[in-house]
């Protein structure tokens, strides 16, 4: 599975979901996580920070002759490799966009690695820009997330429309395999209403809901996703269930 985690807005738990789903998937096989967000938050979730442009995805996109395996951080945690981002990715994306190579850039970069990994997880930034499209084009499946904020549900719908549009343009064949609640406030009326509206829509709402938990922000202190730092906690168990559900949905949808 090549999974891009997308949303059209930030602050909805996308990077936390990407990090934890990737960590959970590493129970099933070798995983590469790719940070396609210039804010480089995914690497930080694992305690990895690129030293400079050349040490990151940005450097690889700048120089197609560069050897991608030398930039990848191997076994950041057992079974999981990481390709970090760097703030210069913003400039690199703008340059590639101007030259027309942005959309397929990440897909071209990852092609030689496909045989090395069972799963690749790409984290994107909270928008539907060209850089997000480049990540989606490298993926075969897409996961989007929402919270109790109605705007985040609209963001999920916009991701669905975005994918539909770019499938029509033949930029990508990636499929939206799931819409997941990344911060479930079980006592909040808004959360129930937002989930209810998504349930009544035709979007592929996943059953697993990640409970709101203080363990998630705390996990950043130990530089490990909660799936690894507190594996027995309810929130970690929920992320593991989400990874399994996403994997099952992808296997069901994709040939």
């Amino acid at each position, binding site marked *: 599975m090549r999974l891009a985690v997308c949303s059209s807005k930030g602050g909805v738990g996308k990077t936390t979901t990407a990090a934890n789903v990737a960590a959970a998937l590493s129970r099933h096989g070798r995983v590469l996580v790719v940070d396609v967000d210039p804010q480089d938050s995914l690497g930080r979730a694992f305690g990895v920070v690129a030293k400079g442009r050349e040490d990151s995805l940005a450097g690889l996109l700048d120089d197609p002759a560069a050897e991608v395996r030398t930039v990848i951080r191997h076994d950041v945690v057992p079974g999981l490799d990481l390709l970090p981002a760097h703030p210069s990715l913003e400039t690199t994306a703008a340059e590639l966009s101007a030259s027309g190579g942005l959309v397929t850039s990440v897909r071209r970069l990852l092609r030689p690695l496909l045989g090395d990994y069972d799963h690749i997880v790409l984290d994107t930034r909270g928008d539907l820009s060209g850089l997000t499209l480049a990540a989606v084009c490298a993926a075969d499946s897409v996961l989007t997330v929402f919270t109790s904020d109605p705007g985040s*549900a609209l963001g999920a*719908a916009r991701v669905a*429309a975005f994918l*539909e549009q770019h499938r029509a343009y033949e930029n990508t064949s990636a499929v939206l395999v799931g819409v997941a609640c990344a911060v479930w406030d079980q006592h909040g009326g808004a959360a129930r*209403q937002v989930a209810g*509206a998504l349930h*009544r*829509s*035709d*979007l592929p709402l996943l059953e697993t809901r990640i409970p709101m938990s203080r363990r998630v922000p705390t996990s950043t202190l130990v530089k490990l996703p909660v799936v690894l730092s507190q594996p027995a906690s309810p929130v970690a168990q929920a992320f593991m269930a989400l990874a399994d559900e996403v994997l099952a949905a992808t296997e069901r949808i994709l040939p």
Partner: protein
Amino acid sequence: MTADRSRPAVERPGSFQDDLLADLRQAAPMPADRPVAPRPVIARTLPLSSPPLPDTLPVLVREVRVTPPTIELRLSSQPWSMPALRRRQGPPGLELSAGPIRLALAYLGG
């Protein structure tokens, strides 16, 4: 400082969930809302003078006769106008205008 009351907020009488669902459907048109493509029909037209067809042809390849239309009725919108009836330009016919509606009836022969 007082609130600007010149542009009142649009009232949404539905429930929160109904309103959000409507917004979701607007943001990402759902499959049920999409126009359904017409089923392909395999057919050939025959001149009206050709002999009648046997009834033994499979349904999908049944040949159909197409009779050219003889009358065209067209309804369109227009800037508001007083009621008026006049002869149509082009093919013979009549045109009725009333308010925002124009109704054109044309005889195409046949």
